[in-house]
């Protein structure tokens, strides 16, 4: 490199720096902020996540396998899957219905309806559980009716399912609604003019446009359904038979089991969480590329 070229490059870099200086932060500040963010996120997010796996395998792989495959863990897994498999589809159907009528029609009281749908987000899980204690409790009409007819709701599987539906209620609709509103109704009207019937319009026109948002909502809904703790704890009380995975972790942690046991079970849920994050990323990428295609 000749002296002249070097000088040109030096001058250019100076120039570049001077311009960047006025529209971005100085280099030192940028590095400091990045370092601070990485450190903070590592301490608060990475370290806890890694520690789960570390603790789980501390007593050896054999112990880990026994802990995750013992009868109580299996029963808890079954209960979690039961609650998830009912609440996610139920909220999916509701989410599609609600998004269709809110997103495609103009009517009075719409904003009230939207606020009502948001209620479970605002309510603390413990209070959510409490609501169902009152609803099906021994003093309530419903509670008495169910007891007289021989159904057990509280402290049994039905209440686990119901309370899970409650806490995951807004997840799907919240994700679909903005997308369906942004789409407008032109495509559906065009389909209508071309003679398509209701189901056809939904199936062939609307759903393809919102499919990633639906998946996104389902992923979030699923993560919350599998992981709900406080609300389920309230309605289940101390009955080990109806423990879900999070409750089983709690029982192991509070009990006299090996300290690695709750972490072993927790790895199942942590894996689910990691899978959720990866899927979420994938769907976000899909959604943004679908948006830029449009």
């Amino acid at each position, binding site marked *: 490199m000749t002296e002249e070229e070097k000088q040109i490059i030096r001058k250019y870099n100076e120039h570049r720096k001077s311009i960047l*200086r*006025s529209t*971005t932060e*100085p280099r030192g500040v940028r590095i400091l*902020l990045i370092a*601070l*963010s*990485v450190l*903070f*996120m590592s301490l*608060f*997010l*990475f*370290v*806890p*996540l890694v*520690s789960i796996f570390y603790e789980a395998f501390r007593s050896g792989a054999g112990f880990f396998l026994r802990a995750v495959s013992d009868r109580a863990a299996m029963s808890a897994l079954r209960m979690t899957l039961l609650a998830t498999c009912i609440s996610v589809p139920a909220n999916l*159907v*509701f989410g599609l*219905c609600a998004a269709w*009528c809110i997103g*495609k*029609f103009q*009517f*009075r009281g719409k904003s009230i309806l939207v*606020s*009502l*749908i948001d209620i479970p987000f*605002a309510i*603390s*899980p*413990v*209070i959510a559980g*409490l*609501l*169902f204690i*009152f609803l099906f*409790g021994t*003093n309530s009409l419903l509670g008495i009716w169910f007891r007289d007819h021989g159904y057990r709701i509280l402290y049994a599987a039905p209440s686990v399912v119901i309370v899970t539906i*409650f806490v995951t*209620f807004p997840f799907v609709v919240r994700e679909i609604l903005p997308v369906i509103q942004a789409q407008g*109704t032109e495509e559906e*009207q065009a389909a209508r003019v071309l003679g398509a019937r209701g189901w056809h*319009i939904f199936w062939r026109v609307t759903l393809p446009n919102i499919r990633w948002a639906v998946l996104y909502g389902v992923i979030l809904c699923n993560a919350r359904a599998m*992981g709900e*703790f*406080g609300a389920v*704890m309230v309605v289940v009380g101390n009955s080990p038979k109806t423990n879900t995975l*999070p*409750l089983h*972790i709690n029982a192991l*942690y509070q009990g006299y089991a090996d300290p690695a046991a*709750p972490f072993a079970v927790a790895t199942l*849920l*942590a894996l*689910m*969480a990691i899978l959720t*994050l990866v899927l*979420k*990323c994938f769907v976000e990428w899909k959604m943004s590329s679908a948006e830029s295609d449009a």
Partner: protein
Amino acid sequence: MANLRGQKKFVSIVPPGLRLVERSVLPGFKLTMGLTVTYLSLVVLIPLSGLFLATRHLTFGDFCHIMQNDLVAKSFKLTFGASLCAALVNAVMGFIVAWVLVRYRFVGRRLLDMMVDLPFALPTAVSGIALAQIYSEKGWIGQFLPIPIRGTPIGVTLALIFIGLPFVIRTLQPAIADIDRELEEVSASLGARRHQTFLRVIFPTLSPALITGFAMAFARAVGEYGSVLFIGGMIPGKTEIMSSVILSKLYEENGQVPASAVALVMLAVSFGILLLINLIQIWANRRFALAN
């Protein structure tokens, strides 16, 4: 038949302003609306009304008496104090992280961005035991700290920071991305230094999103139970938060009324925050939207 129905629609004499639903050629309004309202009522509204029914025997005097109970009052202080601290830490750190994620390009940015949602995705019981473990006296982080974390209000706050972090970051990120670069350029052309641009142009533009994120993190922290249970231990009078008070009251004899009283306060706070967030959004839309 279809034709007849079409004609009937045309002679409707309801003036447009009074019509409940605007006419649309799309089908399915009645069906989906019916299902939505039914499901909403069954799952949310009826259970919610149950709480208010349960408190019908609660007199104002009783209510005050319950609130003045030493343990209840202490749990109030802890819940709101720790939630406020956690939300403040989240607001500051969340702002930095969101800024870094949107504005800077560095190795591992995507991974960091993905990890932001971990507190949403990880069940609270799992994050609870993990936090309790690493902050215990022999834990990975706890062993380096001069003061105990487990079983103290600091532990409670740490757990609340963990679960509230994504709210601030996720509300700020789109707001930062939406900032018009031209605003910063114009500010520089007018002679402002970078910190002046930040304080006087960027920060005020982001403040509605920041307040919204802060309020959401705070609301979530007030209602949190699972992650606090393990690290805090719910020691009555020390690390017991309101959610836990509700639970322990429930197991007492005639505990339903006090439990519902505490729950009412929490509900009022939650709805108050929800209202606040909506008001901020309306205000910000009015002030900041440059509708053409």
